[in-house]
């Protein structure tokens, strides 16, 4: 009986050069239906606590979600997970594009990679034909060339290539992984893990169909077609298609919570030069991911003061703002170039730009000087220096070698007050969302398993007004409409529910831009598709939330076993200090109130407020009591 998956997992030991196929059954899949849940299960069971993230012993899991590859918008994503070389915690990053669906068509749900190859290799998967191939001649080359060389070598232009650039080869601790040159597993340094294993790429080609393992494809196809037609009829989906994420820059600036100059300010004087109306002038095309009608991906091309290739896509909001206002740069050409370089070198644009902003603040405070920067005047606003440092980081040259370690490690090396300017949690740099303007995002930065990411939860602004279409999309989740800056028990409850919903998306391969409240796919439609894919007619919305909660508990248990506790669930000191200017001038997070809210989050989650370990009762409720045995609770 089909239940949405082939149940096949590839196991590849790069040290031994061995390739095996494992199989899981439906009972297993009910608990761990892909993505984050499957990754958490494998890492808890197979990765010894304390393992060096860049050692051969680290385990890299690449896992499709339950819905990845469905003929349905926003169901393209796959998870990469391992111990993070940036944070030392559970590390994870999702990407869209085409690679995950292709792996599904090849008949595999996940790949578990261990060991380290003696020399650079790449993995070739063509349906059930799997082999390790020599990648010595690919090492050091950029993704566009590597993709072309692999397609030529395999004599197949339709092979989908997941790969690292030189940032990954050089084990930059926040190196990303790219597929099709313009889709990224950006955060937590999964590219460095690949690089440490001498694994350059994974090429996949499949001849199967999603339909092969779906319980009932008809409802999935019908809702998928309806969603395709509805994109232009729904304001949020239309906005994602027409403007994409760069449209956020102007709104956040007007609201006074656009992270500017390393989170010191909330408005950027040069915003007119980087917001959507300026971006449109370098926009060269719009793209999408597999079977997705939303088409939110941008492509830019510049042939002026900077040359920017269209091959590597275009900057998203995070990148425009990270290399823009956050570094004090209002030169959109330079921002586009920095984005292109990050994509060529496979560096996470958020951590790269944030680490450069950290260095800029250190430079302005005299903690580093021209000697350390190799003569670069690394002040806020120096676009040319910013672009140069991206290259230095990828190549680990000069100041780049220090900054390739991430802002937390760099601050420790620099000393003095440098740690105050490293705006990170658990070692990962905050995304371009100011928690002083939306505190739920701050709760996520704090309790999220790998630090400063913005996609643990739904942002407070979307669920502040009970009459808005964004809030109405959450009605089946039974949350309350709350002001974005309000802390307290009600916000803690909202957070836990919305974190479970977002985590569920990471388990089943849903893009953040598909479902409500960020976009137009209604909760009921998601439930209908899960039921059709699996045949689990008894599944409810509460069960979807439990799927998400279970995955979060697996990741939390991983962290506890690796020495993380309440002291690591924090925010940078700057978030407790007032914004310097703009409409939010003077706004800060009340430290005591924030801690009280975290207490309530832990209580609702059933986690110990000191160790943050999930309780046995909660783990039993989630049908993963075996985790309590691991934790000794």
């Amino acid at each position, binding site marked *: 009986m089909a239940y949405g998956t082939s149940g096949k997992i590839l196991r590849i030991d790069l040290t031994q050069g061995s390739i095996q196929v494992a199989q899981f059954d439906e009972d297993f899949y009910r608990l761990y239906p892909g993505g984050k849940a499957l990754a958490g299960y494998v890492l808890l069971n197979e990765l010894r606590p304390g393992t060096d993230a860049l050692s051969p012993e680290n385990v890299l899991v690449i896992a499709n979600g339950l819905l990845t590859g469905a003929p349905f918008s926003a169901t393209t994503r796959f998870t990469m997970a391992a111990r993070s070389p940036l944070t030392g915690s559970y590390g994870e990053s999702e990407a869209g594009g085409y690679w995950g669906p292709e792996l599904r068509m090849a008949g595999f749900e996940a790949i578990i990679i261990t060991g380290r190859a003696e020399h650079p290799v790449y993995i070739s998967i063509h349906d059930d034909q799997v082999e390790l191939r020599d990648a010595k001649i690919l090492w050091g080359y950029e993704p566009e060339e590597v993709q072309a060389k692999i397609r030529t070598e395999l004599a197949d232009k339709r092979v989908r290539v997941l790969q690292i650039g030189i940032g990954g080869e050089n084990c930059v601790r926040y190196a990303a992984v790219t597929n099709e040159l313009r889709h990224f597993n950006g955060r937590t340094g999964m590219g460095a893990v690949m690089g440490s294993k001498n694994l350059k790429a994974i090429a996949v080609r499949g001849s199967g169909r999603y339909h092969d393992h779906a319980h009932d494809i008809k409802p999935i196809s019908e809702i998928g077609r309806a969603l395709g037609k509805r994109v232009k009829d729904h*304001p*949020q989906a*239309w*906005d994602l298609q*027409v*403007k994409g*994420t760069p*449209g*956020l820059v*102007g*709104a*956040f600036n*007007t*609201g*006074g919570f656009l992270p500017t100059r390393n989170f010191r300010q909330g408005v950027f004087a040069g915003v007119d030069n980087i917001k*959507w*109306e300026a971006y449109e002038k370098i926009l060269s095309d719009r793209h999408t991911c597999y079977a997705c009608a939303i088409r939110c991906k941008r492509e830019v091309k510049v042939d002026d003061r900077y040359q920017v290739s269209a091959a590597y896509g275009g900057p*998203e*909001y*995070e990148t425009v703002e990270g290399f823009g206002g956050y570094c004090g740069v209002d030169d959109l050409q330079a921002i586009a170039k920095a984005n292109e370089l990050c994509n060529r070198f496979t560096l996470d644009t958020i951590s790269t730009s944030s680490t450069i902003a950290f260095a800029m603040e250190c430079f302005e405070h005299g903690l580093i000087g021209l000697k350390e920067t190799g003569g670069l005047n690394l002040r806020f606003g120096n676009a040319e220096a910013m672009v140069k440092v991206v290259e230095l980081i990828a190549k680990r040259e000069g100041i780049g070698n220090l900054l390739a370690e991430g802002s937390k490690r760099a601050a420790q090396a620099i000393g003095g007050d440098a740690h105050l300017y490293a705006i990170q949690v658990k070692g990962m740099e905050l995304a371009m*969302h100011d928690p002083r303007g*939306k505190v739920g*995002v701050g709760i996520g930065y704090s309790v999220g398993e790998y630090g400063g990411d*913005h*996609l643990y939860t*739904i*942002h*407070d*602004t*979307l*669920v*502040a*007004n009970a*009459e*808005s*279409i*964004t*809030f109405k999309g959450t009605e089946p989740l039974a949350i309350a409409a709350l002001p974005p800056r309000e802390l307290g028990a009600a916000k803690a409850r909202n957070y836990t529910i919305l974190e479970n919903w977002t985590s569920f998306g990471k388990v089943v391969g849903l893009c*953040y831009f598909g479902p409500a409240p*960020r976009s137009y796919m209604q909760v009921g439609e998601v439930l209908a598709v899960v039921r059709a894919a699996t045949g689990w007619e008894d599944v409810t919305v509460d069960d979807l939330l439990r799927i998400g909660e279970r995955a979060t508990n697996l990741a939390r248990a991983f962290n506890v076993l690796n020495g993380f506790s309440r002291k690591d669930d924090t925010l940078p000191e700057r978030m407790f200090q007032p914004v310097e200017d703009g*409409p939010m001038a003077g706004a800060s997070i009340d430290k005591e109130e924030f801690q009280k809210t975290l207490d309530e989050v832990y209580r609702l989650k059933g986690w110990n407020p000191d160790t943050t370990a999930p309780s046995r009762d909660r783990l039993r409720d989630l049908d993963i009591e075996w985790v309590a045995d691991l934790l000794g609770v």
Partner: protein
Amino acid sequence: MKLHLGSYLSWYVPQHPSRMEINLDKPILLAELVAQLKLPVEEIAIAAVNGTLVSVREAQISDEDIVELHPPNGGG
């Protein structure tokens, strides 16, 4: 006056313009302009006149003003 409709607010207006220029013979309430354009007030999360945040219901606008309206948004 100059009006900027951020993000998906422009979806509600025919032709979906992000920017509009509107002649105002006399000062009016921002709420009146919102009603005239048939913008759903519940979708306006941020309203600013000449860079200062205002209440849609209470703010008065005149022909020299630059008005920005943005819907709830987050995550990207």
